[in-house]
């Protein structure tokens, strides 16, 4: 079973996203911040990551940068709501593999995960 890590400080979003993923047969690791994500990434070695952009302490961009340092092949899809186009582009330039718009469309989340894991 492939493992997906969901990183979002917004608890509701995180739970809901995790729920959708586990209903579709993925194992889910949750992290509530960029810092937690880094630790959990190294412990759990997920196959891919859904990474929220707007987070306290370490935002999605910083977290992405650190994740890629730890694992240059990390498969990361950025999650973002409207109005963050510039940041998403920055993430894509840095090496994010995909991008999902919030609020989540179930098919898109699964599609993005499938695309990353292959």
């Amino acid at each position, binding site marked *: 079973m492939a493992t997906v890590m969901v990183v979002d*400080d*917004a*608890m*509701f*979003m995180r*739970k*809901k996203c995790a*729920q959708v993923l586990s209903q579709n047969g993925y194992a889910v690791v949750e992290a*509530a911040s960029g*810092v*937690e994500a*880094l*630790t*959990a990434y190294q412990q759990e070695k997920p196959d891919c990551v859904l990474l929220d952009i*707007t*987070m*306290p*302490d*370490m935002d999605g961009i*910083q977290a992405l*940068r*650190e994740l*890629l*340092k730890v694992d240059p092949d990390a498969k990361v899809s950025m999650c973002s*709501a*409207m*109005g963050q*186009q*510039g940041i*998403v*582009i*920055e993430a*894509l*330039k*840095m*090496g994010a*593999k*995909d*991008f999902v*718009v*919030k*609020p*989540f469309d*179930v098919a*898109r989340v699964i*599609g993005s995960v499938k*695309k990353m894991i292959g």
Partner: protein
Amino acid sequence: MDLAAGITPEDLNLFIQEADEQLQLLDEDIVRLEKEFDNPDLMQEIFRAAHTLKGSSAMVGHQRLSDLAHAMENVLDQVRKGVLSVSPLIIDALLHGLDIMRMLRKELDSPDAEPADITDAVAELSALLTAVNQPAKRITEQTGILTPDAEAQAELEKACQEGKQAYFIKVSFDEQSNWTAVRSFQVINSLSAIGEIIVSLPTTQEIEEGAINHLFQILVASNNSEEDIKELLTGIPEVESVEINAYEKDAPEEAPKAAGPDSAATAKEDIKLSHTVRVDVNRLDTLMEQVGELVINRNQISQLGRTLAEKYHEDEIIVAFGDSVSQIAKIISTLQQDVMSIRLLPVEIVFNTLPRMVRDIARKENKKVEFIIEGQETEVDRSVIEQLRDPLIHMLRNSIDHGIEAPEERISAGKPEAGTIRLTAMHEQDNIVITVKDDGKGIEPKAIRKSAVDKKIYTSENISKLTDSEAVNLIFDSGLSTASEVTNVSGRGVGLDVVKTNIESLGGSVSVESVPGQGTTFTLTLPLTLAIIPALLVSTGGTICAIPLSSIVEADKLDEKEIQTVRGKEVTLFRGDVLPLLRLDEVFGWSDENNRNNEALHIVVVKYAGTRVGLVVEELLEQQELVVKSLDHFIGASKGITGASILGDGRVVLILDITSLIRGTIIERQNGDNIKTRILTSRAGTK
């Protein structure tokens, strides 16, 4: 309102829990923002809260909440970027939006509620944006056709020499898409993975500047087939169509260099997972209740142990049992303390809701107030926290309304234009002490004295006996007001009598100090917990009741001969004062004056609204620490009872709420035709 499909009640609960947190955070932070407008962290936090709300509410299908959060986020974004600067106008609009958000949030609790209208709030917020007159980034439709320049040609040639095929690709995006720039980047990323991008229209730089509409043209050299590329690109969301043609000419150009991960300093050191857990408060209450039961049982077992030890003091087994009992008793005491400490919460929870209120009142009154909070980390039991808010609001209102002068008045008095109100909390032994200190005009003892005499609360002779400090404290007396003009908020003193009564019934105290011209300080003292209270057990009408020690002045024997009547009402002379008497069993309706027991009486002198009343009971039993248990609403309807407790022998005792008991009795007797006794309130006895 209808929720989105697939949202379960659990989901909704989760959402509500988080939304409430975000709303509270916004409430606190937006008010702070007005002062700390140059604090980027604060700005960021507010932005995130609005952002989170927008996302999650859209997820549960609360579209209006999401839309409003979006409107707020737009404004916040402009503030964050420095396009808009923080002004009272912006704060007002944000707070207004927040108020509507709270209404929207409430709709989730009461589905039948009239749906709140967000139009005004959104308009107010949007007006701020147009006020900046920020020109929307001009997006020019790319009508041109991509033509490689010389540099691109050279690069193309080179790629072809390596055996790659050049393709000219036209990608059209969905007309509705707001994400064309991002999608274009996804196209670029996908193509870079399988080949070399020679040139694109618009260029990556132009895309970043937002100069892309719905058509994106790329010249790419790749080893992959046309079909592969097409499949790759159509997999990108919002891509409507992909047109691929083999390109025959060739030219080089510097490929857009991917920005490599730059090694800026990051907070890598504090990588650790959170070590706290969230606990539902109800669970905490249950835990506390169970520990309370343990304490009661411990008392029972200890008592049993003692009885056994007295009876069989030589028996080894009993001695061993006694040791074990005292061991358990110790553990239970520790456990009780631990659970009590878990229930402690910082007063911050209440304090944080106050700046908003202070701001609103000050704005309404056209006063300038600097509000400073100190000691918000001071912890008290949950039961006390709930009781803090109302008294604090009254005192703060009082300070803004009557303490802080209007800006002109302050300037002419040589004070800074803005008044300062300092709210401080600290521990003092087993109490929490909270002060509200302002640098306003203070309270004139003279004015209070005059008012007290005018209102016939005091005679001019009695009033002269009071010190200035005692006179000033009369503002806690009901009906005293020194405001020359009563504003819509409060006359000085209005509401403070209620504060005093309530605080005293909780076993606390409240006082005021003032230096005319320099300011006023309110001091509020409350016990750290209300879950366990010391009380005196008394018996009346064959039943045992508990009177909280905090209400008691003293207790003594009462000889029948000491009881006199004044116009049919029983009174006694106590410490030189005339003390009205109330027979507890008659107050409870368990007995009446026809079958009065007049032998072996006791009196418990209690505080009531600044005066004293003597409660007549049969016996004084003992003093005990009682674990307070709440009563069911059924019984709760009985005025004068604050809760119940269980004694060591398993009996239930009722804990009296002296203030409401006496107030209720007075009202009853004044209203009822069956007036037996009318209480004389002896105003003389304040000290």
